[in-house]
């Protein structure tokens, strides 16, 4: 039930953002308010179960992301370390495109995260940062299989590959 309301309210905010400035009630017209409410209720009924799946064995629920403090941390992470790492990643790829020096391989990482959101966040961060690309996830243990473009160590720790991202993902999602 909680999942339904959260999804519906999220969809409603998204609708209002898209139709910003269409009328005079605050900033939206009456039609947009009504159709937005109806549509977001429908979306909540259909997608609520998908967006927040039931609690699994040994994994924590995704509903803990409702805490606004976590969103603030997420924003700080996005603007600070993430953007910097992304800039470095692109210069790295540029270097490899021009020189053609590669030493690829697939390694296994055990970040030890216990939420789905944390694992997703870490996997996406890894994909967008220097020389690494997530290929597969072991769903029971949360281990990641990462394609590394320049292998320095065949059995690395999670910190050796993605630096402070594990700490950030843990701070944000757990």
């Amino acid at each position: 039930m909680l999942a339904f309301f959260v999804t519906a309210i999220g969809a409603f905010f998204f609708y209002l953002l898209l139709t910003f400035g269409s009328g005079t009630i605050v900033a939206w017209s009456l039609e947009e308010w009504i159709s937005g409410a109806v549509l977001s209720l429908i979306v909540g009924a259909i997608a609520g179960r998908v967006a927040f799946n039931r609690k699994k064995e040994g994994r924590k629920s995704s509903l803990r992301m409702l805490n606004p403090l976590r969103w603030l941390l997420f924003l700080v992470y996005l603007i600070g370390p993430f953007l910097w790492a992304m800039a470095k990643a692109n210069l790295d790829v540029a270097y490899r495109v021009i020189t053609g020096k590669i030493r690829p391989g697939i390694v296994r990482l055990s970040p030890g995260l216990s939420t789905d959101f944390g694992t997703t966040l870490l996997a996406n961060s890894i994909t967008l940062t220097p020389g690494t690309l997530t290929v597969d996830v072991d769903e029971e243990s949360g281990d990641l299989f990462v394609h590394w473009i320049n292998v320095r160590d065949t059995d690395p720790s999670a910190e050796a590959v993605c630096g402070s991202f594990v700490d950030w993902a843990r701070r944000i999602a757990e």
Partner: protein
Amino acid sequence: MSILLYVLLGIGVLFNGLGAIALVRFPDVYTRLHGATKCTTFGSLFTALGVIVYGFARGGAQYNTLAIHVIIALIALLVTNPTGSHAIARAAYRSGVKPKGAVVDKLEDRS
């Protein structure tokens, strides 16, 4: 202000171009994904930032709406691009494409 716009759009074009060249130059699916995903995401981020700055700098209701919609498009792009690249990498691995010249392959032991 216009110099900032030129810089943002220039960085966008540069990195999108690098992504396109990486697509042609690298030897196998995984390395191509590296180049394509990172560079096009970064390039599109800066192009979109350029348009957002343009929208807010012009002012007026229409241009503010333009900037807000570009922000939504940017979020959609940032979320979907790496996720899509996982899907492709995993599918490529499961359909039997091995990384070319790999020094280590931990996935092979598991499956």
